[in-house]
C-alpha cells in the first residue's frame, strides 16, 4: 500500500519546508569547530606588532629584547620576508599590499613584525618588547585632501606609475576612475530637464565585525612538502590558488580548510598578512603556527566597508518622472586597494544605482583614492557596492519627491520598471531577470496603513506641543546578486562559477560537496533540501560538506548572496544528471522504455500505474549492483555552474521613527520588510537571514562608524565604542514576501541574505530625513546616534 502523495512529499523535507537547521545541534552545545579550536602537537603561536602611527618611515626595528623573552622563538620583519619575495603580496583588486610594513607605515595598526613563540602569552610579551622607531610623516585621512596637488605621496612604491590595474591614475594618491552608462546622453537629459535635484551624501566607513575574528592555523610538513592551513575564509579555493602561486607549492599539495566560521559578512573574503605570516612561519620553522587576531585588530586592520563620498543628481519632469540619473563618487580605499570585487569591477556592482526605476539615461563615475587608513572596501553583507548604490538612488528619489512635493510612495510607483518590461536592460547595462514592483509596494503600504501614518504625521507636525518628530521611511529596492557570469565576473582571472558534487550511496543516502562555505547561512540544511526535492531522497539522509579544498570541487565561495543563485543552481544541475541516469536504471529494472516512466516525488513509476515503480532508494542499490548493460556502475555527478546572468531580488520596506525633540533619542516604532527572493527554499532560514540583515542594517544606520582623527588615529576600535546591537537595542521586525521566480535559474531562486541589510539602511535614513522634511531638510548623514540627531534638531531650530 502506498503512502499518500502529500505524506511522501512531507517525508522528504525538501524545498519549501521550514526544516530546522542541522548546524544548530552542534552550535548550541558549543560543539562547533572553529579555527581557534584547532590544536596541533608542537603548535606555535603568532602575534603581530602593529604600527602606532598612521604614516611614518620605519627608522629601525629592534628585536633584541623580544628575542630574550623565554618562549619567543622568532621575530619576523619585512627584511626577513624579502628573500622569499613575500614582503609584498597581490590584492584581489590588482594592487599590492605590504605583508609586513616595508620601510614605511601606511596606516595605524598596520602589520610591522610578527612574533612566534611557544605559547600565546610569550608571543604577546614579545610583541610588547619589539622596539620600532618611527619618523612620523603627515597623515592623510581625507580622500579630498589626498587628491590635492600638494598632498603627500602615500604610495611611494607606485611613484611614476600612471597606469593602475584599472586604467589611468591622474594623481599619486589616485587609484582608478571607473564609470558606466552614457555620459553624453545623461548630460543632455540634464541640460534640457524641467527639474533637477542634487545631493551630497557620505556613506561612512563601517566594519562587518563578525563575532569570530580572523585567524589561521598553518601546518607545513617538511617531509611530505605538504601545507595544510585552517583558515577563516569565505573562499577557501581561491586562497589555495593564491597560496600556491605565492609559495610555489603545487596546488595539489596545498590544502585549505575553512571549518565552522563565526560570521563573515565580507570581512573574511580578503587574504590578510596574518594568514601569510603564519604560513611562512610554519614553512620556515617546520612546525604548526596558530594566529588568531583579537577584536581590536579585527576592527582596526581587516576589511572595512563603504567609505563612499557620493553626489547624486536626478533630472525629472515636473510631475516626477525621472529622466536621468548622474552620480559622482570619491571612494576612500585606504592604504592599499584591497577591495574584494570581481576584478573587472573596481566599484563592484555600483552601477545598479538606477534601482527599481525605469531611468532612460544614467551615468555613474567612481574615483578610488588612497588614504592612511586600513585597506578594504569589502561587501559587508552586500553584493559588491550594491549597498552604496541602493542607498544613493533611494535617497535621491526622496530628495526629488520633497522638491516636487509629491508623496514618496506615489513618486516610486510613477517610476517603476513595469512587469511587462522584463527582462529589462538598464541604462548602465544590467539585464534584470524578473520583477513585479507595484504589488510589493501596495502590499507594504496596506500592511502598515501608510495613509493613516501620513495623517498622524501631519497632525503631529501641526501640534507645536508634540514632544516628538515622526518620520516615515520608504524603500523599494532592487539588488543584483549571484556573481556571476564568468564572461564578465572573475577574481584574479578565476571565473565566478560554482560547483557541486553529489554521490548517492548504494543504500540511498548521499553526500554532497560544494565550492561554497557557510558562515551561518545554513547550507547544510538548505542544500540538502534542494537535493531531497530533486532526487526524492529525504534531506535527513543527505550530508553536505564544504570548505575542505582536498575534498570539495573548486568554487569561488560564499559572499555577495551567490550561494543560492550559483551553487544552488549547481546542486540542481548535478542532481538532474543523477536523475537522468536513475531514469535509465529504473527503466531497465521495470523492463519498460524511459518514455513510459514518469517521476513522482521519490520514484519513477510506469505512467498511470501506481503499483509499478522504483524508488530512488531501489535505484541507488541497483546503480551499484545491477546496472543496465553498457551503463557504468555508481550514482554520482559533478556540475560546475556558470550562471548566464545575475539575479535581481527586490522588495519594499517601511520604517516609522519617533525622534525625541529634546534629546534626539530615536525610537524605531515599526519596521516592515517585504522581500521577493524568487523561489523560497527554506522559509524559516529566510526569516532568520532577514532578521540578521535588518539587524546589521539597523547597526549601520543607527550607530556603526569607524572614525579617525586628523593624525589618522582610529577612534573607537573596540566594542566599547563600536556599535554591535543585541536583543536589547534591536527593534521588532515584521517580515513579508512575494514570489517572483528568476527565469534563468534552475530553481527560480534569487538569494536573500543581503537584501535586508542593503535595503534597510536607506529605509532608516529616509525615515530620519522624512521626520525633518517639513523643515526643509533633504539629507543628513548616518549614523543616527542621539548626539548627531540632536545636532540636527539644533540646526533645524527644534532643540535648544
Amino acid at each position, binding site marked *: 500500500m502506498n503512502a499518500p502523495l502529500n505524506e511522501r512529499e512531507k517525508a522528504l523535507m525538501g524545498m519549501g519546508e521550514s526544516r530546522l537547521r542541522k548546524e544548530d545541534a552542534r552550535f548550541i552545545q558549543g560543539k562547533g569547530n572553529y579555527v581557534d579550536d584547532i590544536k596541533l602537537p608542537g603548535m606555535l603561536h603568532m602575534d603581530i606588532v*602593529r604600527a602606532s602611527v598612521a604614516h611614518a618611515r620605519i627608522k629601525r626595528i629592534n628585536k633584541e629584547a623580544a628575542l630574550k623573552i623565554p618562549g619567543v622563538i622568532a621575530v619576523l620583519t619585512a627584511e626577513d620576508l624579502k628573500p622569499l619575495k613575500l614582503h609584498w603580496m597581490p590584492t584581489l583588486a590588482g594592487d599590492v599590499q605590504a605583508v609586513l610594513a616595508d620601510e614605511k607605515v601606511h596606516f595605524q595598526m598596520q602589520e610591522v613584525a610578527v612574533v612566534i613563540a611557544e605559547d600565546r602569552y610569550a608571543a604577546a610579551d614579545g610583541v610588547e618588547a619589539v622596539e620600532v622607531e618611527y619618523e612620523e610623516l603627515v597623515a592623510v585621512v581625507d580622500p579630498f585632501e589626498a587628491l590635492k596637488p600638494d598632498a603627500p605621496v602615500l604610495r611611494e612604491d607606485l611613484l611614476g606609475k600612471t597606469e593602475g590595474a584599472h586604467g589611468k591614475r591622474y594623481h599619486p594618491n589616485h587609484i582608478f576612475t571607473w564609470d558606466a552608462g552614457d555620459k553624453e546622453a545623461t548630460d543632455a537629459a540634464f541640460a534640457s530637464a524641467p527639474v533637477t535635484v542634487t545631493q551630497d551624501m557620505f556613506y561612512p566607513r563601517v566594519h562587518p565585525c563578525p563575532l569570530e575574528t580572523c585567524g589561521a592555523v598553518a601546518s607545513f610538513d617538511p617531509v611530505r612538502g605538504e601545507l595544510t592551513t585552517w583558515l577563516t575564509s569565505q573562499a577557501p579555493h581561491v586562497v589555495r590558488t593564491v597560496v600556491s602561486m605565492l609559495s610555489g607549492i603545487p596546488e595539489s599539495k596545498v590544502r585549505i580548510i575553512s571549518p565552522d566560521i563565526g560570521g563573515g559578512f565580507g570581512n573574511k573574503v580578503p587574504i590578510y598578512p596574518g594568514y601569510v605570516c603564519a604560513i611562512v612561519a610554519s614553512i620556515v620553522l617546520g612546525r604548526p603556527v596558530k594566529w588568531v587576531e583579537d577584536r581590536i585588530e579585527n576592527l582596526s586592520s581587516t576589511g572595512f566597508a563603504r567609505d563612499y563620498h557620493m553626489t547624486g543628481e536626478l533630472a525629472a519632469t515636473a510631475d516626477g518622472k525621472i529622466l536621468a540619473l548622474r552620480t559622482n563618487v570619491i571612494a576612500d580605499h585606504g592604504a592599499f586597494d584591497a577591495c574584494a570585487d570581481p576584478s573587472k569591477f573596481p566599484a563592484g556592482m555600483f552601477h545598479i544605482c538606477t534601482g527599481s526605476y525605469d531611468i532612460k539615461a544614467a551615468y555613474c563615475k567612481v574615483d578610488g583614492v588612497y588614504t592612511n587608513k586600513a585597506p578594504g572596501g569589502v561587501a559587508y553583507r552586500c553584493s559588491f557596492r550594491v549597498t552604496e548604490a541602493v542607498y544613493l538612488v533611494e535617497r535621491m528619489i526622496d530628495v526629488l519627491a520633497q522638491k516636487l512635493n509629491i508623496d514618496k510612495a506615489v513618486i516610486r510607483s510613477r517610476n517603476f520598471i513595469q512587469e511587462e518590461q522584463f527582462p529589462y536592460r538598464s541604462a548602465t547595462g544590467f539585464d534584470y531577470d524578473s520583477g513585479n514592483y507595484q504589488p510589493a509596494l501596495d502590499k507594504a503600504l496596506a500592511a502598515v496603513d501608510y495613509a493613516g501614518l501620513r495623517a498622524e504625521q501631519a497632525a503631529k507636525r501641526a501640534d507645536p506641543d508634540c514632544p516628538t518628530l515622526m518620520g516615515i521611511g520608504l524603500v523599494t529596492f532592487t539588488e543584483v546578486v549571484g556573481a556571476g557570469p564568468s564572461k564578465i565576473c572573475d577574481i584574479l582571472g578565476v571565473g565566478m562559477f560554482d560547483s557541486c558534487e553529489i554521490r548517492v550511496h548504494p543504500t540511498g543516502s548521499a553526500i554532497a560537496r560544494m565550492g561554497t562555505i557557510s558562515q551561518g547561512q545554513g547550507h547544510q540544511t538548505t542544500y540538502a533540501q534542494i537535493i531531497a526535492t530533486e532526487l526524492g531522497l529525504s534531506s535527513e539522509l543527505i550530508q553536505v560538506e564544504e570548505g575542505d579544498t582536498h575534498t570539495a570541487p573548486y568554487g569561488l565561495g560564499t559572499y555577495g548572496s551567490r550561494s543560492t543563485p550559483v551553487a544552488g543552481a549547481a546542486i540542481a544541475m548535478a542532481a538532474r544528471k543523477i536523475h537522468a541516469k536513475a531514469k535509465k536504471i529504473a527503466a531497465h529494472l521495470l523492463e519498460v522504455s524511459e518514455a513510459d516512466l514518469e517521476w513522482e516525488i521519490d520514484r519513477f513509476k510506469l505512467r498511470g500505474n501506481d503499483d509499478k515503480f522504483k524508488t530512488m532508494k531501489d535505484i541507488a542499490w541497483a546503480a551499484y549492483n545491477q546496472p543496465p548493460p553498457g551503463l557504468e556502475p555508481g550514482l554520482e555527478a559533478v556540475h560546475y555552474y556558470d550562471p548566464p546572468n545575475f539575479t535581481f531580488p527586490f522588495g519594499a520596506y517601511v520604517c516609522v521613527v519617533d525622534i525625541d525633540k529634546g534629546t534626539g533619542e530615536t525610537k524605531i516604532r515599526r519596521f516592515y520588510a517585504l522581500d521577493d527572493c524568487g523561489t523560497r527554499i527554506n522559509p524559516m532560514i529566510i526569516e532568520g537571514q532577514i532578521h540578521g540583515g535588518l539587524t546589521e542594517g539597523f547597526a549601520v544606520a543607527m550607530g556603526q562608524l569607524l572614525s579617525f582623527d586628523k593624525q589618522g588615529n*582610529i577612534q*573607537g576600535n573596540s566594542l566599547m565604542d563600536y556599535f554591535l546591537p543585541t536583543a536589547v537595542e534591536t527593534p521588532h521586525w515584521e517580515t513579508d514576501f512575494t514570489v517572483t521566480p528568476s527565469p534563468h535559474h534552475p530553481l527560480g531562486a534569487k538569494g536573500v541574505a543581503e537584501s535586508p541589510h542593503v535595503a534597510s539602511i536607506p529605509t532608516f535614513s529616509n525615515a530620519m530625513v522624512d521626520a525633518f522634511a517639513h523643515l526643509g531638510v533633504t539629507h543628513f548623514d548616518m549614523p543616527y546616534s542621539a548626539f548627531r540627531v540632536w545636532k540636527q534638531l539644533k540646526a533645524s531650530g527644534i532643540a535648544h
Partner: protein
Amino acid sequence: MEVNIDKQYPVAAGLDCAWQVLSDVTALATCMPGAQITEQVDATHYKGSVKVKVGPAVAAFAGDIELLAIDPATRTLTLLGKGADKSGSSASMRLEASLVAAEDGSSTLVGKAAVIINGKFAQFGGRMMASVSDVILAQFAVTFSQKAQALQEAADAERVAAATATATATAAEGSTASAAASTPASTPSPAKPAAAISAPKELNALALVWMMLRNFLAGLFGRKA
C-alpha cells in the same frame, strides 16, 4: 588627536618667586606628576621622561624638551616637548606659560598648550584625554604653587630679618615702622604653610579615576545650581 589646553592657576607667591620656578626647567618638570628631567643636553635642550596612565593605556614617555623662548620681561616661557613610549604611543606638546600679577600680591600662572597624541592613547584614551589632562595639570599647578610659595616664604623671612635688624638699631624712635616693615605688602594672604613639597610620583590610576569622578559630580551639581 589634538588637545588644546588654555588654563589659569593661582600661585601662592609673588611674580619673582613664581618666575624662579617657571624659568628653571628642571624644577618646572618635577611639578609634573611622574615627570623628570634626566639630562640637560645644552642651554636649551633637555631630555626627560614622564609616566602617565590613561584608561587602559599606560605610557612611559621618554623624549626631548626644547626651550624655544624664555622672556623674564614678560615672564613667559615657551617650550616644545616631544616624546614616545615603547608600547606604541607618542606625544608632542607646545607649551606657552606666563605669569601675571594678582591684586593680592600673589600671581597667576597662565598656560596655553597644544598637545598632539598618537597611538594607543589616542585610540583608547581619546574620550578621557581632556579630563585626564585637567587632573594632571591641576596637580602640576598645586606643586608649582607650593614650590613658588616656599621660595616666597624664604624671601619674606630674609626681609623680616633685615627689617628687625634696622628696627632694633632705631628702637628709640618707636617700633611702628618696624611693625609696618615686618608685614611686607607682597606677602600673599592667606599664607599657607608650605611644609612638605614633594614632587608627586607617577599619577596612580585609582587616584586619577577618583579625581575625575569627583570633578564629574561637581560638574553635575554645578549645572543644577
